[in-house]
């Protein structure tokens, strides 16, 4: 605060000069030099402020006024001109002093701000910042400076700087008083106390003794401003002045200074913490299971952790970092999930470095040398950098090979399962399975089944149709011998799958004897192959070959397991398809035997039939019906052979044909029964057969109804059904049987319904369908069609669960 004394001296010198010049003027008679008094305020203005200059100016003007006395020119023009010059000069000197002082103040402020900015940029440790702030502000801007800062959630009195002889004691005492409260800091309050009075001191004193201490500081003026950084209040700066008061402009300067000091402290703190954070982060990254790399915008890797090195096939991160990036990428052939090749520019890190924000990318990478296949999720993000610094991209690579393989295997097997279940023509199915395996499992897939002394290729798949054509030609030209010692034939024989991950010339030579054939094989460029058996019911029924060529991939143990599972499923499906084909062939043949191709057209009679075969699994054979002309009218019958297995089913057809042949030849139902009974009884296996037979006279007026162990036919007359026919013994049980007929006179409108016990034995929710329900269903039916439809509808409504037994209904009516 030297300025004040300098100003006082300059004022005194100025006033003395005024007196000196006035004396000279008075003493010098010949000359009037009154106007020279104006020199005094100008000189003062050069060295001091406006206030002091004004004081000298006042003296100069007074001297100018008085000069009229000793120059004896009061009232003259000369007097007024000289006075005006003095007044104007004095006023100008005051203005000049003021602007010169403002300039000096501004320079002073500027120096302070520049000093604060330098501290902020220096990025030194926190104690260094406090020392430098103290040196900058004390005593240039304050006599005492106190800095409180927020660290975590506590407030710390970071620095106290005073000057003067007892500075050390004052600093110690202020430090001891402790910091401001957290609330005060958080509130960011700014305060200017221009004149510190007794009341202010009392308000702030913590005790009488403290008050005494505050008084001893002789504080005149006080400023309190928040230290701010990045929008947060991080502390306070308190400034105490003892020699001069602070003004509004000082508060503004203090706010600006506090902003820079806050920044300086934040930088210092931040840098210190960042250093340790960086250390911790690096340690964390190093041990992370995910591979992490950091790539510079020039393409080079600046960081890689252990996992990254291992994942990319390097012994250590250092080794990886020393490898040129181009080489690292070139070691793998990379693909998208859909199998399309991946370009280097598509890698997330490249995109980040190009200023984009890429999505995570699923990549299938096949190592060009080892052929090993890995699935990776690659994510990249940009490291926030300041302007002018190089861009960095952090890449996190997660190896999802196991998950992906399991998922693909599951999806693949699900698709295979659906395929195998959907199509029952197994050759077609196998072709589709082979297509499904390419290219996700291999580049090539071939399915081979044994056929005589050869292996018959039933399916070949490759994504390129030309190559498929080539393979077909090859297979035709060089059919595989079923006795070949190696390869597919060997797998077919012993059922043990084979895996070769290096197909080289030596291996080809040992497997393919013919040099021409070998050359042809070589053009395919086979790299690796798996041959797995197709197994059904413990038997090897064929082989599946999966080969890698252009993809250069190798097969892992889990690939082999997947292929073996494929073999098992395909084998079972083929066997099922074969069985089904066999069975449906039998069923179709039998069906032809059981039922007439179509019911004959009988003049004057209307016929209708219903046949509901039992579920596939109960191929018991059983019900049959027939209607045919005889020499003595028409025979209509429904029968049922009880027995098990395909043989019994075949007998059903025989039973119908025996009855038809005997009936047509002999025209006698009893003779037909006897014929069939004899045939069945002669069989070693008991084959009981029941038949209901209606013999209609040529004039359609009468019908003879016989039952051989069979439920009686129902005659619906006037809409009311009742049973008709004589019971006789079943066929196939006893050799000495005989039968008799009930003669029924037919009327117009009569409906006669023959049925098998499958109808009445049908299982419902609680009980069997039974005869009463059948009678109820037929109530009111008017013709054969209606009768059949009524029975069908009633059974459909009643039946629960699968059908256990065949059901046959034959109805006739007289219109």
């Amino acid at each position, binding site marked *: 605060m030297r300025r004040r004394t300098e100003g006082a001296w300059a004022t005194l010198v100025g006033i003395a000069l005024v007196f000196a010049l006035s004396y000279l003027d008075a003493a010098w008679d010949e000359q009037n030099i009154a106007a020279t008094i104006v020199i005094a305020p100008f000189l003062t203005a050069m060295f001091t402020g406006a206030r002091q200059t004004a004081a000298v100016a006042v003296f100069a003007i007074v001297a100018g006024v008085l000069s009229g006395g000793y120059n004896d020119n009061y009232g003259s023009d000369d007097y007024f001109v000289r006075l005006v010059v003095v007044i104007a000069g004095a006023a100008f000197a005051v203005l000049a002093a003021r602007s010169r002082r403002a300039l000096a103040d501004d320079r002073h402020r500027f120096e302070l701000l520049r000093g604060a900015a330098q501290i902020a940029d220096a990025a030194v440790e926190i104690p260094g910042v406090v020392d430098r702030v103290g040196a900058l502000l004390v005593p240039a801007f304050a006599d005492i400076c106190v800095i409180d800062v927020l660290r975590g959630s506590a407030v710390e009195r970071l620095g106290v700087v005073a000057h003067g002889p007892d500075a050390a004691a004052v600093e110690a005492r202020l430090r001891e008083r402790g910091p401001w409260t957290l609330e005060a800091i958080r509130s960011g309050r700014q305060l200017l106390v221009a004149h510190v009075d007794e009341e202010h001191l009392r308000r702030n004193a913590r005790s009488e003794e403290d008050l005494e201490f505050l008084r001893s500081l002789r504080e005149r003026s006080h400023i309190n401003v928040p230290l701010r950084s990045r929008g947060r209040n991080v502390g306070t700066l308190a400034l105490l002045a003892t020699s001069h008061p602070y003004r509004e402009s000082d508060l503004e300067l203090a706010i600006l200074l506090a902003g820079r000091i806050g920044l300086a402290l934040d930088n210092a703190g931040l840098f210190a913490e960042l250093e340790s954070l960086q250390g911790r982060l690096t340690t964390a990254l190093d041990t992370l299971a995910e591979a992490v790399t950091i790539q510079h915008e020039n393409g080079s890797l600046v960081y890689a952790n252990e996992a990254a090195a291992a994942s990319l096939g390097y012994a250590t991160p250092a080794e990886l970092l020393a490898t040129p990036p181009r080489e690292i990428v070139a070691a793998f052939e990379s693909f998208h999930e859909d199998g399309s090749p991946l370009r280097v520019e598509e890698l997330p890190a490249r995109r980040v470095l190009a200023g984009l924000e890429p999505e995570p990318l699923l990549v299938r990478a096949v190592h060009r040398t080892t052929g090993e296949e890995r699935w990776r999720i690659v994510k990249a993000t940009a490291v926030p950098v300041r302007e002018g610094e190089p861009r960095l991209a952090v890449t996190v690579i997660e190896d999802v090979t196991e998950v992906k393989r399991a998922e693909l295997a599951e999806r693949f097997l699900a698709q295979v399962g659906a395929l195998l279940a959907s199509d029952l023509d197994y050759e077609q199915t196998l072709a589709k399975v082979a297509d499904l395996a390419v290219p996700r499992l291999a580049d090539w897939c071939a399915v081979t089944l044994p056929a005589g002394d050869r292996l018959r290729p039933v399916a070949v798949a490759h994504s390129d149709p030309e190559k498929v054509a080539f393979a077909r030609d090859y297979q035709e030209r060089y059919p595989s011998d079923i006795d070949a010692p190696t390869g597919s034939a060997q797998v077919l024989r012993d059922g043990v799958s084979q895996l070769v991950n290096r197909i080289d010339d030596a291996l080809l030579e040992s497997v393919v004897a013919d040099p021409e054939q070998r050359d042809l094989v070589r053009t395919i460029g086979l790299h690796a192959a798996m041959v797995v058996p197709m197994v059904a019911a413990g038997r090897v029924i064929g082989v599946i070959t999966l080969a890698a060529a252009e993809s250069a991939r190798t097969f892992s143990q889990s690939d082999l397991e997947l292929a073996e599972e494929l073999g098992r499923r395909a084998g079972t499906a083929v066997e099922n398809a074969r069985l089904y084909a066999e069975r449906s062939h039998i069923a179709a043949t039998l069906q032809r035997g059981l039922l007439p191709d179509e019911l004959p057209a009988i003049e004057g009679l209307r016929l209708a039939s219903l046949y509901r075969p039992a579920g596939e699994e109960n191929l018991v054979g059983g019900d049959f019906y027939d209607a045919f002309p005889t020499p003595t009218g028409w025979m209509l019958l429904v029968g049922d052979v009880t027995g098990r297995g395909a043989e019994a089913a075949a007998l059903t057809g025989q039973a119908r044909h025996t009855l038809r042949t005997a009936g047509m030849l002999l025209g006698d139902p009893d003779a037909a029964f006897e014929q069939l009974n004899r045939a069945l009884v002669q069989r070693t296996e008991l084959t009981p057969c029941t038949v209901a037979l209606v013999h209609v006279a040529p004039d359609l007026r009468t019908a003879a109804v016989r039952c051989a162990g069979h439920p009686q036919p129902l005659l619906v007359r006037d809409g009311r059904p009742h049973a008709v026919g004589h019971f006789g013994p*079943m066929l196939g049980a006893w050799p000495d049987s005989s039968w008799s007929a009930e003669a029924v006179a037919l009327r117009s409108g009569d409906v006669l319904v023959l049925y098998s016990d499958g109808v009445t034995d049908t299982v419902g929710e609680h009980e069997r369908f039974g005869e009463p329900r059948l009678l109820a269903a037929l109530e009111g039916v008017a013709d054969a069609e209606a009768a059949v439809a009524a029975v069908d509808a009633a059974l459909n409504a009643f039946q*629960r669960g699968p*059908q256990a037994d065949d059901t046959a209904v034959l109805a006739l009516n007289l219109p």
Partner: protein
Amino acid sequence: MEPAPEFSVTRRPSGEAVVVAPVGEIDLATVDELAQALDAAREEAGSVVLDLREVTFMDSAGLRLVLEASLAGGAFAVVRGPREVQRIFDLVGLDERRLTMLDQPPDG
């Protein structure tokens, strides 16, 4: 067809004979169990009695089994079942001439 859960077969000796007593419905789903019981009974004794009193239903598969037993030779008899079971015997002509029918098991 859902298997009849309530079906069961018991065997008990009765003098010279073994009485096989099925309970429930005899049809395709249960006939094998009854056949096994009859085979076992034949091995245990010279004569077998099939007690049909607790049988609620019998289809052609059951009938075939009874017929087979009656034709197989050896001493075989049935104890008459309810009317609806008895009716199937009438239907196919399996009458007293061809099959010994009792009202009660020998020990009952």
